[in-house]
């Protein structure tokens, strides 16, 4: 790791001031992804602002019947929360489909949203990567791309968002609450939080420098059965090849998002509207314009089959 100074923030405002005002500074919460990347010298912060002491670790009911989840709530605490298990099962299911007990105990909700991609070339500092070194090129295009994105990609980057929790949050219309350096707060719809790579794949999130995630909010739970199905190379502790998060109503309508197929959790309104027509129609619409590689073209039929399984589950 590159040497860095360290401080514990005493208030959100102080944390934001410290990060916004110090070149090379970063927030750290669970640190399970950041420290891993620091060991590989992919992330090289010169100052860490530890936010874990801030009062952002509670889960509260909102007046409209939704839920407000503090950014520092651990993945385990969120998955095990009685109201989440009862009303937002897709979130519990998605969280426990990811990582391990040890990692989920440490990882925070805010940090989980900010986890970086898992492209093998992003992790290999000896190869070009436009995310790691902007302008250096993309080694994945024409390289080992089996795990990578098939849709929403660009000529500059085909890395996928590897998360599970975020796919579930996407079907629930979650929003991300933040505070910026001026002390202003805002709520960013999750669909706008993740940026597609375009020509600037190094910019992954709709956050300003120093802007801190303070909470994730969920609207009241939608009616229907909750599903999260993850297909991976081994039965546990592996990133998804394809995942499907869905809330399905008895009448055949519902909500659906796909994970590990795009640079962000992939939810398309027109595709979702095709749910009553069956999985083929949904996938044809969701993956319209996809540009898979010869190594990962299988993800599109796999997404259709996984969705078919989920729909069958929904019908009991």
């Amino acid at each position: 790791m590159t040497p860095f100074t360290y401080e514990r923030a005493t208030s959100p405002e102080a944390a934001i001031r410290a990060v916004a005002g110090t070149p090379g500074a970063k927030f750290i919460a669970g640190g399970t992804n950041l420290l891993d990347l620091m060991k590989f010298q992919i992330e090289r912060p010169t100052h860490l602002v530890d936010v874990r002491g801030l009062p952002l670790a509670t889960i509260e009911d909102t007046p409209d019947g939704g839920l407000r989840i503090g950014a520092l709530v651990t993945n385990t605490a969120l998955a095990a929360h009685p109201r989440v298990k009862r009303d937002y099962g897709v979130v519990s299911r998605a969280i426990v489909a990811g990582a391990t007990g040890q990692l989920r105990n440490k990882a925070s909700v805010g940090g989980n949203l900010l986890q970086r991609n898992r492209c093998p070339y992003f992790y290999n500092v000896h190869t070009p990567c436009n995310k790691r070194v902007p302008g250096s090129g993309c080694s994945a295009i024409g390289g080992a791309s089996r795990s990578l994105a098939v849709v929403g990609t660009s000529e500059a980057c085909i890395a996928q968002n590897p998360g599970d929790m975020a796919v579930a949050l996407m079907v629930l219309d979650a929003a991300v609450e933040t505070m910026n350096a001026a002390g202003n707060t805002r709520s960013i719809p999750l669909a706008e939080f993740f940026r597609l790579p375009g020509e600037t794949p190094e910019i992954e999130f709709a956050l300003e420098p120093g802007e801190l995630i303070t909470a994730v909010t969920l609207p009241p739970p939608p009616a229907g059965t909750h599903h999260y199905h993850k297909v991976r190379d081994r039965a546990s502790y592996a990133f998804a090849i394809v995942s499907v998060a869905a809330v399905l109503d008895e009448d055949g309508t519902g909500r659906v998002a796909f994970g590990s197929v795009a640079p962000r959790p992939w939810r398309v309104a027109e595709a979702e509207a095709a749910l009553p027509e069956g999985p083929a129609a949904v996938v044809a619409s969701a993956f319209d314009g996809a540009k898979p590689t010869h190594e990962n073209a299988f993800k599109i039929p796999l997404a259709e089959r996984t969705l078919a399984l989920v729909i069958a589950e929904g019908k009991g």
Partner: protein
Amino acid sequence: MLLPEWLLNRREFVAGAAASGALTTVPMVGPSPALAETAPTNAVRLDVNGEPHALTLDTRTTLLDTLREHLHLTGTKKGCDHGHCGACTVLVNGTRINACLSLAVMHDGDSVTTIEGLGTPDDMHEMQAAFVKHDGFQCGYCTPGQICSAVAVLAEVEQGVPSHVTGDLTAPMALSNIELRERMSGNICRCGAYSNIADAITEVAEARG
């Protein structure tokens, strides 16, 4: 003390040159800038297995390296150092984490329990005794992490933490074989002692009712 003529001459030359200002851009004393650069440190107070420790550590020091290299508690093992293998699993304030993916400075004031704190050869924790009874290891390298993880798994089930194989999320939880295997998936055993590890954990879980 007699000095060789060449050294005397060199000294005179350096002294004269410094006085004239010719060498002012070259530091003549002290280490080079690269060597002078010292990594930032922080004070850390840790309670480890009931013993208080006050340390001053390079901020980069992981909790794992603190335990092994500074406190010489080598029961906790370094496998992959990236959170993949679980050999470094310890309990922090009763919760299992990967000690390799946490900085010691993030644990100021925390209580850490390692394999040494669970029990001793003369007074083993029930999970340690069950691993011995069921031969839940071969080489033993992953064992401290397996045992710390197993102790925490039983607590997580009691607390209602679901797993990937849990059926009804809201029903009371039980530790079936498939449940404990899923919950232990962050602890890899290259010797493949899994079936005996599962037997050991099952015995402790059943004894607790």
